[in-house]
């Protein structure tokens, strides 16, 4: 069999296995484990979209939290029933289209992605003219403006009260499917000619321009596609939380994504997937340390804030000593696995 065909088959089989596993897990794992897997999937979406903009195109944007908020609010407002909205909006009644609309999940999700991509364009078009620190500050500013606007628009998104009782449509298969889809699209994109142009922009803008790469077009392309996936991720985030308010989308969310991306290696999607799992698990393990409990008559008071402290120290150590993260720019590939398998079997025959 051709090697290329073999690889395609292997990829399809593994996707099928993951989807089947997620389908199986829905009924056989307890809700806590499902929640962990769910968060993992969402973080994979966030990290992959972060890597597209920072790791591959070299544009350090910190707008993730604000963009995720756009996706989360869009999907929540669309799938909540008009009655539920009337009940929970008690500062000001919801305005017209929001007060009557109720959509099924899939169109809402797509609209959330599209709307976030549009917002991403509106932010990126001016901000991507800036470079380095300035871009970062500007996107952070936009992200905070979105959050503060959400606080100040009681008739659209219930202001600081947020939204409650968001119906739970997305099951684990949805999340797994969308995470795979995100990774697939990002991978295909960065391996295409667009992706090579993006890497070129990252390495040297002047050289890129000299060889005819349209800087702004490629930056904005990466940013808008990334925003689309952030919106999808934000929508799933709202689904798993069930309750959102503007403070869910403080810059801390962006820092978390940045920590994961740096931990995995900003140019590696494989690294991002591993780092997202590590972050999810660590986050849960450290939650245990924060809660007070009693071990045999021994009082342990619980240390609030310890979790964030550990992540902050980790980020600093990574930046100081392991800037490449776990994977650097290496990726998992079937070639690597196949050559490893072949070598092992050969080694087995010889001995």
């Amino acid at each position: 069999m051709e090697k290329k065909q073999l690889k395609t088959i292997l990829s399809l089989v593994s996707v099928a296995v993951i989807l089947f596993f997620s389908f199986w897990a829905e009924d056989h794992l307890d809700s806590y484990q499902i929640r962990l897997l769910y968060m993992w999937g969402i973080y994979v979406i966030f990290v992959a979209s972060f890597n597209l903009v920072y790791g591959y195109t070299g544009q350090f944007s910190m707008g993730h939290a604000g963009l995720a908020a756009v996706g989360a609010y869009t999907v929540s407002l669309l799938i909540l029933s008009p009655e539920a909205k009337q009940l929970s909006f008690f500062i000001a009644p919801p305005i017209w289209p929001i007060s009557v609309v109720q959509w099924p999940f899939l169109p809402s999700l797509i609209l959330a992605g599209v709307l976030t991509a549009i917002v991403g364009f509106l932010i990126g078009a001016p901000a991507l003219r800036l470079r380095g620190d300035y871009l970062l500050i500007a996107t952070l500013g936009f992200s905070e403006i979105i959050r503060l606007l959400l606080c100040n628009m009681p008739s659209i998104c219930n202001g600081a009260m947020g939204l409650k009782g968001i119906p739970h449509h997305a099951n684990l298969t949805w999340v797994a499917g969308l995470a795979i889809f995100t990774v697939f699209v990002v991978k295909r994109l960065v391996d295409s000619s667009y992706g090579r142009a993006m890497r070129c922009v990252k390495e040297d803008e002047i050289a890129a321009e000299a060889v005819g790469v349209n800087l702004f077009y490629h930056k904005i392309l990466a940013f808008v596609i990334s925003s689309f996936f952030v919106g999808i991720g934000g929508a799933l985030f709202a689904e798993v939380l069930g309750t959102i308010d503007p403070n869910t989308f403080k810059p801390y969310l962006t820092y978390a994504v940045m920590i994961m991306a740096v931990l995995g290696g900003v140019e590696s999607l494989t690294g991002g997937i591993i780092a997202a799992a590590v972050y999810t698990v660590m986050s849960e393990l450290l939650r245990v340390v924060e809660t007070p409990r009693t071990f045999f008559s021994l009082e342990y008071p619980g240390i609030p804030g310890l979790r964030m402290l550990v992540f902050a120290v980790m980020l600093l150590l990574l930046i100081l000593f392991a800037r490449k993260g776990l994977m650097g720019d290496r990726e998992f590939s079937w070639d690597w696995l196949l050559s490893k398998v072949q070598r092992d079997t050969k080694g087995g025959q010889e001995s």
Partner: protein
Amino acid sequence: MSFELFVQYLVNGVALGSLYALVAIGYTIIYGVVNLMNMAHGEFFMVAAFLAMWGVNKLPLPWYVAYAISTVITVLLGLFVEKVAYRPLRKVKVSSFIGAISVSFLLQNLFVVLFTSRSKQFPHPEFLDEVLHFGNVSIPVVNIVIVIVSAGMFLILSYIVSKTKMGRAMRAVSKDLEAAQLMGINPDRVISFSFILSTTFAAVGAFMYCSKFPYVDPFTGAIPGLKAFIGAVMGGIGSIPGALVGGFTLGLSEIMLVGFLPTMTSYRDIFAYLILILFLLFRPGGIFNVKIREEKV
């Protein structure tokens, strides 16, 4: 609206503006010399306030001793952070920014772990609570003290920068690091010195800010830090007079906005961010259009 009301707002605005200017100068010194947006500046501010509070409440010390010791410790912390976290990252542009963010994040959460996130009363000398009345205009003593201390700090700083040898070295490094090195200036020493100045300004700013708004929690530094940063960008980051003007303008306009358009109060942070973004986009050199080196943009 009456003239007296306007004067009242003006007085409050000048006090808030001087505070922002004081903290903004801390950002600008670092940016001018090291070319780093020190996002942990607000956290140095918070640390100073916390240590002073701890000194007065727990040890207990008289406020001036506690404030002095707290300033010294904050300066030492600044030097330590510069040496451990910023110096190794100086060559790598974007990483140095992540370094600054993670230091800020680390200090905030360290203080949440040590002191919990509950906000506590900041102990300040009692005479600051008094209010002077001039006709219908009432001026809290703390506002007067803020303006006087800020003016004094600014004079000392301009003396250091323009007259002393170290100040000249700072200006040389900010103009051209390599040429300065060739002239026998040790950039590490100059940068350490600029961190000493910057953290001192953060500490003094913190004592006055927390005397005016007397609550401290681990996130106290975030908002004034951010506003001061915006002030620094408005004035042209890297320029000391610019930081002064920028901080003043932001403080004054914030008070005027809240005073004359009370319905817009909840939008004031949005305006602050908008100003920041507009300046970054259309006038990155700030009000005075400070010349920005190519690699800074």
